[in-house]
């Protein structure tokens, strides 16, 4: 389980523009880490760099003690799962087929599906509460179901680290809560879960750690209560944040425009 993943002062450039600058972050197992920040602050970029999907122009993403770019995609995929924001499914693959694709890094080119493959896929489907949809064509699912199926696909690879890029972006409140609860449970099971997200109240409720991004720089990192401070939120998001404590003792934020 000692599959350490950390960003060491990484910068990412795209089209001559620096989207991420000297960002350092260590991913901890058993924790739910939220990456927050305004649109365009580099949340997705940080996640993709951590997943080894985007090359870095400076610094290094270290994975298992070596730069991640020296690992093969297949090796990375066995440990790090990445659930992209693009959940489009154009062709009529069944849910079982989609989830089974998560087994790709474990299977030989012509190896038939083994009992272990089937068991891992089945477990992932059950975990994400979509086992009853197995025979459905994935392009007929609702947004919430599709997101859960894609998480199941990533879990079928039996990864230690799960990175999710705004998994609740297009979901209604009920399905968003389902997804975040699932992420919380995955962290509880010992996974390192890293989620790029927008809803700061959900962050306060579900996450253990937060990395706060502002224009490509990590301007705050640490336990939720330390980072989610009204002053920092005002500086980064340009809104006045008011913290209220409910009867149960948990903190909620109310936001007011500065104008």
């Amino acid at each position, binding site marked *: 389980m000692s599959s350490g993943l950390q960003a060491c002062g990484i910068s990412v450039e795209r089209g001559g523009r620096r989207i991420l600058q000297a960002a350092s972050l260590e991913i901890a197992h058993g924790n739910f880490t939220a990456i927050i920040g305004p649109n365009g602050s580099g949340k997705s970029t940080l996640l*993709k760099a951590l*997943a080894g*999907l985007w090359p870095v122009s400076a610094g290094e993403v270290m994975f298992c003690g070596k730069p991640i770019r020296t690992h*093969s*995609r*297949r090796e*990375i*995929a*066995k440990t*790090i*799962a*990445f*659930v*992209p924001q*693009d959940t*489009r*499914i*154009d*062709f*009529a*693959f*069944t849910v*079982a*087929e*989609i989830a089974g*694709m*998560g087994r*790709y*890094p474990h*299977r030989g*080119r012509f190896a038939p599906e083994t009992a272990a493959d089937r068991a891992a896929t089945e477990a992932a489907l059950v975990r994400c509460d979509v*086992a*009853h949809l*197995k*025979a459905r064509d994935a392009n*007929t699912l609702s947004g919430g179901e599709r997101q859960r199926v*894609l998480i199941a*696909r*990533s879990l079928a*690879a039996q990864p230690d680290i799960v990175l999710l890029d705004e998994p609740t972006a297009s979901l209604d409140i009920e399905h968003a809560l389902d997804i975040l609860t699932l992420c919380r449970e995955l962290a509880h099971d010992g996974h390192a879960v890293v989620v790029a997200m927008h809803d700061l109240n959900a962050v306060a409720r579900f996450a253990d750690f937060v990395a706060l991004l502002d224009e490509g720089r990590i301007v705050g990192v640490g336990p939720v209560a330390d980072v989610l401070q009204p002053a920092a939120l005002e500086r980064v998001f340009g809104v006045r944040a008011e913290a209220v404590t409910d009867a149960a003792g948990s903190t909620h934020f109310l936001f007011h425009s500065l104008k």
Partner: protein
Amino acid sequence: MEIKSAGMKGAGVKQRLRVRLYYSVTLPLLAISILAAISIGSTPLPWRTIVAVCAIKLLPASWLTAFGSDVSTITATDQLVVWIIRIPRVLVAAVVGAGLGSAGAIMQGLFRNPLAEPGLMGIGPGAALGGVLAFVTGWSSRSVLPLPLLAMAGALLALGLVYAMATRGGVTPIATLLLAGVATGSLVSALSSLLLTLNIANWQIAQEVIFWMMGGLEARTWTHFWLCAPFVAMGLCAGIVEGRELDLLMQGEEAAASLGVNVEAAKRTLIVTVAILTGASVAVAGMVGFVGLLVPHAIRMMLGPRHRVVLPASALGGAVFLILCDLAARTLHPPTEIRLGVVTALCGGPFFLILLLRHYRAASL
């Protein structure tokens, strides 16, 4: 819960049954259409004659007595019609159909678009231009080889150009590839038209060029078959080997990469595979449209989208489809042959619409 899980198991079994059903219908259909296409024509031939000629050509002389009087009554004309004229043509039709069918399936997966077809990357137009060059230079009238070889060279050159334009730093974005392909395709087609216009005064050449652009299999020989079959076989195998990668690429490149696929390498292999399949097919048949669009689409509706299933099934379906289309092209309006590309579009269009309507009706239920 129990009922549901029984239903799930049923779905997997049902799909496997459907694949088996598909092959148990299509394989005999292939045999029947090959036999029918050899037998039907201006000189109708009974199937016994066809079998006897094949026996004479393929079996050692000492075995032939087993066929008795069938063999002894075979004339030189029978041999010529069956072995030199009809069989190569039918086999070329089968191979071209297989090549275009599987090339279309790969293109649609690669572009994540069910409307993609082999011509999209400029490969088809490139091959066509090569063919046109062979006609206007007069090389095609001197021997069999210049036409298919120039067509293949045209396909590979067009692909090389498109690929080089779309690739920066080892990365080939599919959208850029599409744009470069469409641009190159129009440019190359314009060159073909230019050559045609310049040679319109020489009606014989112009006619050859026009016919080539409409596709056709008249006067195809064993040489054509051997020029095309190895490449189609190679391309089909490569496609099946990369089938799982193609399934994953259909989920989006980021998803595929995060699941362990070496995306750029897989794309490169698949693009070259499409070029080989399309180039070899266009080289011996001219421009035959619709097969690469229609066949994989129909197969996916029947058997689902997994490429390890779709690719071989599309090859088989494409072979049967093109043999029957070529048979129709030869026999519908004798003595004139209708151009093969015209027949595929005329048969394929309505069939495609029916499938599409049925699909949407089923989806809306």
